[in-house]
């Protein structure tokens, strides 16, 4: 065989290889088996175990377009605090199904890494990816998440705008009692930061209304606002806030501290101010 023949043979193989790698035609049987492996890797096996990871890898080998399996491979890295391993894997899921996973990546950038700008970029991208549809990663509208991301950036105008949009749409479609109650809390905080105390108090009262009167956060922020103008009510509020906190009625979640999370120490400091000033 001449060098030219070898060269042609090599080129043909290279083309075929690339075709096999990237343009694999997946049979219905492989898709079905891939889905079964994904379900096993995600639900039956211990998340992050060798067996689970290998099972998910096999699911992807059978069907390279099994975007759920691609995404599932990233979850263990996220939950174990390994950002440099999480990111490239999750990016593959975004590449595989951007409509579903790009807004979700925004939620993760926001909640697990407090990267507000990257989060907003992903939420904004969802407007183009799914026009006339409001995505809801982790069960909340991208407008809700953008309100929170802009709050993290201390861009209170945009934060208020997005929380207003979210609350208005939810109220119109489902009723105010179906609005995620922390939207009122965070909109109240944004109003507080812009010294719009009247609006802030209204939102904190909404939090208390829909939480049946229990919310350490709402009472704490109300006490902050009222401490000079109505110290007697403010003192009662902070004492009640501490009771609520100790009973577990405060804004928190597993895995990671939430934005603007309050702690008992915050409440005790404010209570101490009342003692010192002898209200």
């Amino acid at each position, binding site marked *: 065989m*001449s*060098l030219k023949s*070898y*060269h042609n*043979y*090599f080129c043909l*193989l*290279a083309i075929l*290889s*690339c075709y*096999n*790698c990237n343009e694999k035609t997946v049979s219905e049987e492989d898709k079905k088996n891939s889905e079964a492996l994904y379900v096993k890797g995600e639900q039956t096996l*211990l*998340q*992050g*175990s*060798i067996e689970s*990871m*290998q099972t998910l*890898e*096999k699911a*992807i*080998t059978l069907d390279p377009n099994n975007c759920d399996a691609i995404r599932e491979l990233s979850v*263990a*890295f996220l*939950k*174990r*605090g*390994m*950002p*440099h*391993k*999480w*990111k490239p894997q999750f990016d593959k899921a975004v590449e595989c199904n951007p409509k579903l996973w790009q807004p979700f990546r925004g939620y993760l950038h926001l909640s*697990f*890494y*407090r*990267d507000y700008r990257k989060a907003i970029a992903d939420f904004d991208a969802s407007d183009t990816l799914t026009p006339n549809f409001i995505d809801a990663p982790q069960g909340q509208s991208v407008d809700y998440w953008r309100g929170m991301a802009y709050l993290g950036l201390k861009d209170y105008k945009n934060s208020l705008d997005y929380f207003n949009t979210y609350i208005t749409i939810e109220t119109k479609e489902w009723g105010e009692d179906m609005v995620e109650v922390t939207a009122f809390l965070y909109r109240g905080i944004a109003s507080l930061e812009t010294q719009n105390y009247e609006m802030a108090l209204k939102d904190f009262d909404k939090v208390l209304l829909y939480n049946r009167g229990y919310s350490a956060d709402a009472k704490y922020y109300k006490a902050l606002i009222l401490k000079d103008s109505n110290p007697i009510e403010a003192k009662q509020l902070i004492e009640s806030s501490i009771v609520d906190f100790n009973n577990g009625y405060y804004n*928190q979640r*597993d*895995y*990671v*501290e939430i934005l603007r*999370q309050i*702690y*008992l*120490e*915050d409440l005790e400091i404010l209570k101490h101010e009342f003692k010192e000033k002898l209200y």
Partner: protein
Amino acid sequence: MKAKRSLPIYFFLITVLVFGCNKSEKAETKYQERIGYINPETSRYSENFKLCNDGNLFGGYYSSYAPQVYKNDKIVFSKHIQKNYKNKNYTDNGFLNLRFHINCEGQVGNVEVNELDENLELTSLNQELVQQLIDLSMAKNNWNVFEFEGHKVDTYMYLIFKLESGNVLEILP
């Protein structure tokens, strides 16, 4: 002569192309340990550090309980960092990621250090900055020791410091 010399190169490239696609074989060997495992031989502060329960960590490497690992609440840890960390004209942007074990006596060891840029990719940060944050994080009184069935247990924990111009903007989880 020229053709003969080129043959091994062609066959090598063909082999790489053909077997490079065989992802299932790669999957079998890709994961040697569960995700999150910290190898004491490659991590820092492993010498003289011992886990009390043969490496059986309370909750494994799962981190749903992470916010409870800070002693006296995370706000105390955050204030400790902000009060004692000094930005000595550092210019770093990105993240410092520490992963470590806390043994049943509350000692910190087996520290894996990942220095990341703003895109969460590995990079090199100012080493003095890194050492400051490691030293402040490793203090024994930062961390809770959990009990399970009457016995003190070992725990896994991680930290992410978000850095901008050498300042600590956020601490997670």
